[in-house]
């Protein structure tokens, strides 16, 4: 990401649009786009990037879930069954993250990106 002379709101707009575009195109979550762009392009710390990303995902996922629900694709019970332990997991994950060095978060994120990239190529 070369340093471009874009104003801050414009850069945020680019990140948001890119995150949405890629999730619409490939079904990957917006977080995989938002977090690295905030870190590499905005100079966000890893903790702030991941926290801000989660807050943005609330909006994105709520919108996407409501439109998908209209198409009758959502299996509500299964979503709840997997969602409840996941809420426990996110409590644990955010707690653990506060005790994790920023560099470690970036390295783990890089592993996630490689995994997603490999999955996209082989599927």
């Amino acid at each position: 990401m070369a340093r471009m002379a874009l104003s801050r709101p414009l850069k945020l707009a680019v990140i948001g649009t890119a995150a949405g575009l890629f999730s619409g195109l490939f079904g990957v979550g917006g977080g995989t786009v938002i977090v690295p762009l905030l870190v590499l392009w905005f100079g966000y710390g890893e903790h702030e990037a991941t926290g801000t990303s989660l807050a943005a995902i609330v909006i994105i996922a709520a919108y996407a879930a409501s439109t998908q629900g209209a198409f009758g694709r959502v299996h509500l019970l299964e979503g709840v069954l997997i969602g409840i332990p996941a809420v426990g997991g996110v409590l644990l994950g955010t707690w653990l993250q506060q005790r994790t060095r920023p560099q470690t978060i970036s390295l783990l994120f890089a592993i996630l990106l490689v995994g997603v990239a490999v999955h996209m190529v082989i599927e």
Partner: protein
Amino acid sequence: MIGSIVIGLAAGMVAGMLGVGGGVLFVPGLVLFVSLSQVDAEATSLVAIVPVALVGAYQQYRYGNVRVPDAALIGTLSIVGAISGVALANVLPERALKLGFAALMLLVAFRLVRKALREPGTSPGPAGSD
């Protein structure tokens, strides 16, 4: 059932640690353990992501890690982007796009690693001459 619980817990952990929704694990989990079709798994995954992101964002907000106006702008514009993305997915060559995007992700991963390895640890060391 047990598979659902384990994958849910793992997805939540990844969401909390890395600031993603957890769909990266929800979708394969719902396909493998609950036998949903890919399309249904993606839709159902979104329903699970909402409470996960909400609780994760709330926790991060309490820790002081959420820049609320930035998140609101990114989230809102993502919806515009997603609508365009879905429309574009129908007219563009998907395979080529996926390969391009995968390559871009590898590049970003490399840059994250390079940045992480260049940075000094969290403990304040002597000012290096770098």
